[in-house]
């Protein structure tokens, strides 16, 4: 029996789908059998980020309404044999499925996969309830902004009510802004949210480039965000991996320039 993990945030645009795609891929990279489920019905984009849009035949609603078998709707990833995705429907909306139906589908998937990664829509309404229904744990994604932290707090409260333990991923950290005090720092966020920190992901242009190319960032080991996602995946498997330093390792020349105050 595998484990179902919902990726949620409350606020939109903090990187739920990117995190889902990258963690799913990173877990597959570590040799796990993974299925990603997009529950953002009507606004699906996990398939776009994964570059699997043109392979979709059936979707989540088709499965729920019995128009196809679960296995028929699963889309196999083009990079890994053990990575699958269950896409959301694009023409329906969140009320066309209820939490019990999602729970049944997730339960079915857990039998065959080590990890079921559920990509949750923004908001705390029906879509959120659907996504959380089948989850054993949650990863709450936030960015170092007050609004995102507030929403993350609200979501953690709701998850506690449904007895889904949550861990935190802080996305899109900019080292230079944290250093100058313009951005909330990690300790501050952890103090307010009071949940375990699973990892931090630095802001990286390569993430956007990769998402547009339909190629998850994790595949590119030169990207710092990729390393961060791989670290998170290893922590999910129970490895002890230290948090990556925010600053890039600076070379001798850089350090010298910094010393002179021009770096």
């Amino acid at each position, binding site marked *: 029996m595998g484990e179902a993990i919902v990726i949620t945030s409350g606020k939109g645009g903090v990187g739920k789908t990117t995190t889902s795609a990258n963690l799913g891929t990173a877990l597959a990279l570590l040799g796990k059998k993974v299925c990603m489920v997009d529950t953002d019905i009507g606004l699906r984009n996990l398939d776009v980020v994964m570059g699997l849009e043109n392979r979709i035949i059936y979707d989540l609603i088709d499965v729920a309404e019995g128009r196809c078998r679960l296995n028929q709707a699963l889309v196999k990833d083009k990079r890994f044999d053990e990575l699958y995705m269950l896409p959301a429907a694009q023409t329906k909306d969140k009320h066309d499925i209820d939490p019990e139906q999602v729970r049944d589908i997730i339960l079915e998937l857990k039998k065959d996969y080590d990890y079921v990664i559920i990509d949750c829509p923004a908001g705390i309404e029906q879509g959120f309830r659907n996504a959380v229904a089948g989850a054993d744990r949650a990863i709450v994604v936030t960015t170092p902004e007050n609004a995102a932290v*507030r929403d993350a*707090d609200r979501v*953690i409260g709701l998850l*506690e009510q449904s007895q889904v333990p949550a861990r935190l991923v802080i996305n899109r950290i900019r080292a230079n802004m944290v250093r100058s005090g313009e951005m909330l720092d990690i300790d501050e966020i952890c*103090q307010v949210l009071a949940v375990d920190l699973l990892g931090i992901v630095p802001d990286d242009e390569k993430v956007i480039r990769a998402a547009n190319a339909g190629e998850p960032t994790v595949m590119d080991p030169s990207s710092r965000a990729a390393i961060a996602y791989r670290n998170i995946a290893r922590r999910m498997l129970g490895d002890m991996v230290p948090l990556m330093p925010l600053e890039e390792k600076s070379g001798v020349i850089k350090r010298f320039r910094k010393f002179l105050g021009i770096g």
Partner: protein
Amino acid sequence: MTDKQHITIKGVKEGLVFLLDDKCEFSALLDELQFKLEKSHQQLLTGPIVHVHVKLGARQASEEEKESIKAAIRQRGNLLVQSVESDVPQEPEGENPHNLKVHTGIIRSGQTLEHNGSLLLMGDVNPGGTLLCTGDIYVLGALRGLAHAGMQGREESIIAASLMRPTQLRIGEVISRPPDEWMSGDAAMEFAYLSEGVMKIDKMTQLHRLRIQPVVFKA
């Protein structure tokens, strides 16, 4: 007869329980009792001797009133009144500020903790979280959300917190909005109180000046 029933008669193992409404007039209750006993429930109330317990709900009846209920029931020879009871008199909560509730946990955004009396919270209140109390509020943790003490006008209520960083404080009818109105840079435990209708904030050590309670040392 009145349109609403004030008396419910229930059969239990020991006999009958008369549940009397606690909101209506006492005289209405007596009238209905008479009516029920004499008219509508004859089939139930004739026969062998039955023990009767009368429950008055939250109504606090005087001895005479209890006696008149007993008298009315005794008219039926087969009914034996065993007891006439009110519910355990509850402390009129709102008026007792010392009805202290201890709660452990984090009050997160969108969550509200409401209490009649004073509240001791072991944990934080996050921005968007709310505490509502008729008495005092003490937070052993960081107060980052909204706290309203003395809700029903108890203006002598205070709000104390280990770390005072609220989005808004209310005591009685007074609303204060830090940090526009005041800001405390201290990390020490502080409390907010009303002084002549204005909210002030001070260190915990100053509270004894506001609330003079002679200390009694027992040998």
